Each structure stands twice: as structure tokens, then as C-alpha cells.
């Protein structure tokens, strides 16, 4: 049994009386890629931002590599990285400086060497001195993902990581994500690209209106619904989110 690197227990998040996430529980183990899927407004981004420590949960508990995010936030945050859905960068830092900043924030001793390696790995070596205004959307996205890997986090949270990337970069990014998990880290990603989720993820958590309506491998989810046997994740997803009376898995 692999170690559980992300543990979410009864997580709820309420904004001004509106429930964005309700009593959500799931785990992500080392070496595993778990997909967070659901229609718009299902609570995927709120869940990821809460797990990243950007938002405080209204109720529930989050643990990262055994550290409680509320009780020991710094320990927990040192072991995770978050890639948001929009690649927001500092206007006056170069690509290399963004990676160096990331290294300094997480106390990485050989940040400069790692930054150089990651810039080369993500095809940004010739843009190391470029400011964000000189980078395309795809380059900015790659830079944010590279920065997330500088401190080699145990748990990687990715919100729509492939948006804005070209086909070559998508292929490379999928290999990076899979390789990261295979190296013993945990990856939790949200995506609307269901074929990517199907290809990359070991398990999926399906959300609707802030509630978990299904969880497990695609085979496990389909097993509970014989009518969906042999269908793609897209068909399973549509059947689940259209189901008027979902039963939590």
C-alpha cells in the first residue's frame, strides 16, 4: 500500500452563504495521478485552491504528506506545489528569476542549477532573460509548471495544466506528469479534457455542485452502472452529471 500524500476529509467551502464544496473526502497516494472532473462550477478550482492553502476551508481537514494544512501550514506547503489555471507571472521578473524565486521560497539550495535544467527541459532556455510580456501564453504556462517542480514537491496540484499548450508541449507535459507520479509523487489534476484524464489518471473524482458523485477507477465507476459498460469516460461523465439522483461512490 502506497503512502497517502494528499488526504482530504470532509472538506467544505462556503462563500457568502453559497456552498462551493460540500463534505468532500478523497486521498491521493504516492505514485498516483488522480483526476478531478466535473462541469463548470462543480467546485474543482475551489477544491484545488483550498488544498493549496490559498483559501481557508470552512470545515474539514487537509493533510499533505502527513502534515495538517491548518495546524502546520508551512510544513504542509513545503511539500506541495500548485499550478493555477491562469499563468500569472510577476511583470518585472525574467523567466530564470521566476524559477530562482520559487527555489528561494521553498528553500532549495541549488536553485540556480535546477532552474537551468528545468528551463532546458521545458524548452525555455533561450527565453531565460525574457520578461512575461515577451512570452506567449503557452510559454508562460510552461514557466509556471517548471517553477512548481523546482522544489520537487511530494504533491502536485494542477488546475487545467494543458490549457494554451501546443500539441508537442501537451505530449511532453503528459510525459512529465506521468513521470512525476511514477517517481513516487502524488498528482491531483483538474481538466475538462476527458481523454487526457482517461489517459493519465489512475483514478477520478467526479464533482457536481460541490459534491462528490463518483470516485474510483473508470472500471470501478462503470461497475456500479452496468448500462455504461465499455463506454468512454466522456459517456460515463455525461451520464453521471445528468443523473438526477446521484449516489455517492
Amino acid at each position, binding site marked *: 500500500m502506497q503512502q497517502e500524500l494528499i488526504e482530504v476529509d470532509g472538506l467544505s467551502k462556503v*462563500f457568502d452563504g453559497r456552498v462551493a464544496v460540500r463534505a468532500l473526502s478523497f486521498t491521493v497516494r504516492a505514485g498516483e495521478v488522480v483526476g478531478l472532473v466535473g462541469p463548470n462550477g462543480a467546485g474543482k478550482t475551489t477544491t484545488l*485552491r483550498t488544498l493549496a*492553502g*490559498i483559501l481557508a476551508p470552512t470545515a474539514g481537514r487537509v493533510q499533505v504528506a502527513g502534515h495538517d494544512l491548518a495546524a502546520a501550514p*508551512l510544513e504542509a506547503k513545503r511539500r506541495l506545489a500548485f499550478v493555477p489555471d491562469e499563468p500569472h507571472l*510577476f511583470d518585472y521578473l525574467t523567466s530564470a528569476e521566476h524559477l530562482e*524565486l520559487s527555489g*528561494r521560497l521553498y*528553500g532549495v539550495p541549488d536553485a540556480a542549477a535546477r532552474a537551468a535544467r528545468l528551463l532546458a527541459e521545458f524548452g525555455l532556455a533561450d527565453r531565460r532573460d525574457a520578461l512575461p510580456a515577451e512570452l506567449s501564453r503557452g510559454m508562460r504556462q510552461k514557466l509556471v509548471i517548471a517553477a512548481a517542480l523546482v522544489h520537487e514537491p511530494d504533491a502536485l496540484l494542477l488546475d487545467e495544466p494543458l490549457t494554451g499548450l501546443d500539441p508537442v508541449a501537451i505530449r511532453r507535459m503528459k510525459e512529465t506528469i506521468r513521470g512525476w507520479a511514477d517517481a513516487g509523487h502524488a498528482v491531483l489534476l483538474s481538466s475538462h479534457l476527458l481523454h487526457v484524464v482517461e489517459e493519465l489518471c489512475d483514478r477520478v473524482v467526479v464533482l457536481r455542485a460541490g459534491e462528490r458523485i463518483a470516485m474510483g477507477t473508470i472500471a470501478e465507476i462503470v461497475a456500479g452502472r452496468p448500462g455504461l459498460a465499455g463506454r468512454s469516460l466522456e459517456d460515463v461523465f455525461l451520464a453521471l452529471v445528468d443523473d438526477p439522483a446521484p449516489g455517492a461512490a
Partner: protein
Amino acid sequence: MSKALGFLLARSLRNRARLTLRRLRRPSHALAVLAGIAYLAVVFGSGSSARGAAPVPGIALPVGALGLAVLVAWGWVAADAGRVLAFSPAEVAWLFPAPLTRRQLLHLKLARAQGVVLLNALLWTALTWRPGLGAAPWRRALAIWALLSVLALHRTAAALLRKGATSTGRAGLRRILPLAGLVLFAFALLAGLGGVAGGNVAAVAGPFAVLAEVLARPPFAALLWPFTLPLRPLFAGDPAAWLAAMGPVVLLLGAHYLWIVRADRAFEEAVAAHALDQLAQAPRGQSARPLPARGARAPLLPLAAARSPAAAIAWRHLASVTRRRGALLALGAWLLLIVAIAQAPAFTDLPVGETASGFALAWLALLAIVGPQLVRNDLREDLAHLSLLRVLPLRGRTIVGASAAASALVLAAGYLALAGVAAVGGARASLGLPALPAALYLLLAAPAALALALLQALVQNGGAILFPAWVRPARAGGGTAVLGTNLLTGVVSLALVAGLLLPVGLGVGAAWAGVTLAGGGAAPALCLAEAAGVLVALGEARLLAGWLGRRFERLEPGDVDPG
């Protein structure tokens, strides 16, 4: 503050300076910087060479304390707490998930605020420095820095408390209490002013002396005492007095710092939620702009589905104005100020109406000069979204005309409001106009104000279309370059509007002369001259909108933001 945050601040500052130097190679940017420096040199030069009498501490201190109290109260009652606390989207995305403490984030916020405070301290030292005025320049600079720092820290602390109150449902109470205190204070002050004015107006020299005399009495003296503390070093004549006055200010700074770092837990959540709201609405690749206050109010006019596309564009620009609480509050505050000053007998021995009329005319003239650059609810705030505008199935002249009409309506409303105050106050006589009913003047003023505002708005929009990278539409910013750009744009715009008004003036003159030569009275002459002037102006506006529309159709997103 952590080393990583120090690295972020230092590198950002260095790269920003390098970028600024690189931009200076562009002639347009260099010209703007030169214009800005020239303007500052003129202002500073006149300030430092002035030999006017130094302000008397006995008057300046209580009046300054009152001004400080109003600023502080404004921070509690009306300022946007979210804006004060706002972190940029990049800061939220990079720093909030990082292993940083809340205190480290607060220190980053305070360090960034210090940059603005230092710049302002230098500016105000230069602006207010005169030989023989209170403290020596370096002591004055330190005193101004301390004053501005206390203000900045207080604003942050107030914003934190207000955000905390919002999260605990006590926001209403915490906003109402300072507001109620402010209203009570204002009433007591007006009553005090009335008492002094009713007693012996002639014995006191000028309005500020009257105000200072009232503020020196109880309870105002006690209420304003804390606000005099940060001001006292400014008036300390010798080093010993300055040092003694700085002691309490340093204590104030320390107390505010402790207040902030011990603020409640709502801080992170509040600023993160605010920043996330902002970045959800910000166009990609742009800095997020502050959102209007929660619960955007309905626009003044509903948009009917049957309205024309041009009406829809104008409606959208008008709706954006009605949702800016700060702008509306500021406008209301200025109008109230004019009325309040005019009604306070202690301030003048002129009749109330004449005073109000004079103020209104002065503001009208000022609005006519700077208003077109300030009222920007038109194409200037939309050019950043040029790609979206270009896919609309509309001709360029429709987009340009409707956008300009939106800001022209706002501008014209300002003109009319001030003209109304002036007319009621009896401006006609002081301007030497024919003795006709004030209502007729107001009726005639409406189309004239609209036509003038339309021409002014078209000129401003023309600048944004013809020189998009120069005018930098919808860009927030500051610095000498922006100051110079605004100055040059303002001067050129004024000259262009003056040129456009020449044919209008000829039309007005011809109509007036025609009627009076034919033996008509003043009223028909005025009406016909007005009609002729408005018709000429509208004709020019139509031609201008058509030409600018064609230029707009050739504009490309790369022209607006060359990167």
C-alpha cells in the same frame, strides 16, 4: 521579511528601472518624460522660489489636523478596503501556496507601500519647501515621511479591521459608527462656525482663521489632538523641538505596526478572495483592476433588446460609470462642498448666491479643461479589448460615435450641474448676459453642453485611435512619463478643440448678427445662435466620427499594445 521576498522586491525594482531606461530610447517616450520633468521643474521652481508668508502654525496645525481627521474617517467609511489590501494575481498564485507566514506577506505589503510613501515624501518635500518655512529640508522630509507612513499604516489597519468585520458580520456597525461620528462632528463644527460668524466676523482675518479659532475650542481641540501629533514636526522650528515632536510620531508608527501584525485571521482569506475575484475578471495578460463594491448596482437605464447596437455600446459605457461608487461619491462631495462653502457666512462677506455662482463657474472652467481627460468611459477604456470590438458586426464610425457619446453624456451632465448652480446663483449678471429667465439659459445650455462635450470626447478618442501606444488607453500607471503624456495630450487636445470651435463660433456670430441686424430681440437671437452653433458642432462631430471610424477599422491589436 523573508530573503525570497527581498529577492522579489529587489529584482523587480532593478528590472523595472532597466525597462524604463530602455523605453527612453523611444522618441515618444523620451518626449513624454521630458515634458513631465519640465512640468515638475516649473511647479517645484515656483514652489521653492515663492516668497509668500509661511503658514502660521496656530492656524495651519488645527486646520491640517481637521484635514487629517477627514482623511482617516474616509478610510473607515468609504475607502475600498479590498483595494488597500489587494495582492496582485501573481502574488496570490505564487506566494499564498508557498511556505510563508501571514506576517511575512504583511511585511511584503508594507514594504511595497513604503516605496509609494518615500516617493510622495520626496515630492511633497520639494513642493512645500520654502526658505524660512519651519523645519530644515531634511527634517521636513522625515516629518512628511512619518506622516504619510502613519496614514498608510492606518489605512491598512482600518482595511484589515473592516475586512475582519465583514467576515464576522459586524461590518455595518463598524462603518456606521465612524460615519455617525463624522456627521456629529460636522454639525458641531457648522454650529461653531455660525457662532463665530454671528459674533464678530470682522475681527478675524480670513476663513481659515475663523476655522482655526473654532477648532481651538472644546470639544474640537480635544477631539483633534491625536491628529495634530503627526503634524507637529512639520512646524518645529529648531532641532530640539523637532526631536521632541517626532517622539510621539514614532510611537504612533510603532502602535500602528503592532496593530497590523496582530490583525485577525481573516486577512489571508480576505485578500486572497479579493485577488481571486479580480483575476477572474481580468483579461488575460493584464493587471487586474479593482472590482466595484460587492453587489453591483443596477444601471440608471435598462437596456431594451430592441435598442440599436450603437445604443448598446453607449449604454455599456454609461453603466460602467454608474457602478463606480468612488467617482460618484467624489462628484457628490464636490457639489456638497461648493454648496457648504457658499452657505457658510463665516467664509465670505459676499451674498451666498454670488459665492456659489463664482465657485460653480470656476469649477465649470476647470472641468472644461481637464474633464475630457478624466472622464474616460469610452473607447479609451475599451481599446485593450480591441480584438473583441473588431469582431462586432458594426462599422467603425458607429463604435467610435457611440463610445464618445457615452463619455460626452457624463461630461455634459457635469457641465449642466455646475451651470445650474451658477445660474441659480445669478451668474448671468456677472457674465454680462442679456436679462432673460434663468430657465431659458438652462434650456439652451443642455444642447450646447452636449455638443461641446461630444467634440471634446471625439478628440480624446481620436488621440487613442491615431496614437494608441502613445495615449496608452485604459492603462493605470504613474511616473514622469505618464505625467508628461497627459500634459502633452491635454495641450494638443485643447488646441484641437479650440480649432473645432472656430467654425462653431462663426456660426453663432453669424446667426446672432443676422437676427439683431434684422431688429430681433435678445431671446430670438440667443436661440438662433444656439441652434446654429449646435448644428455646426454636430456636423463636425459627424465628419470626425466618420473619419476616426475608418481609422479605427484599420487599427490592429498590435498597434494598441506593442509589447
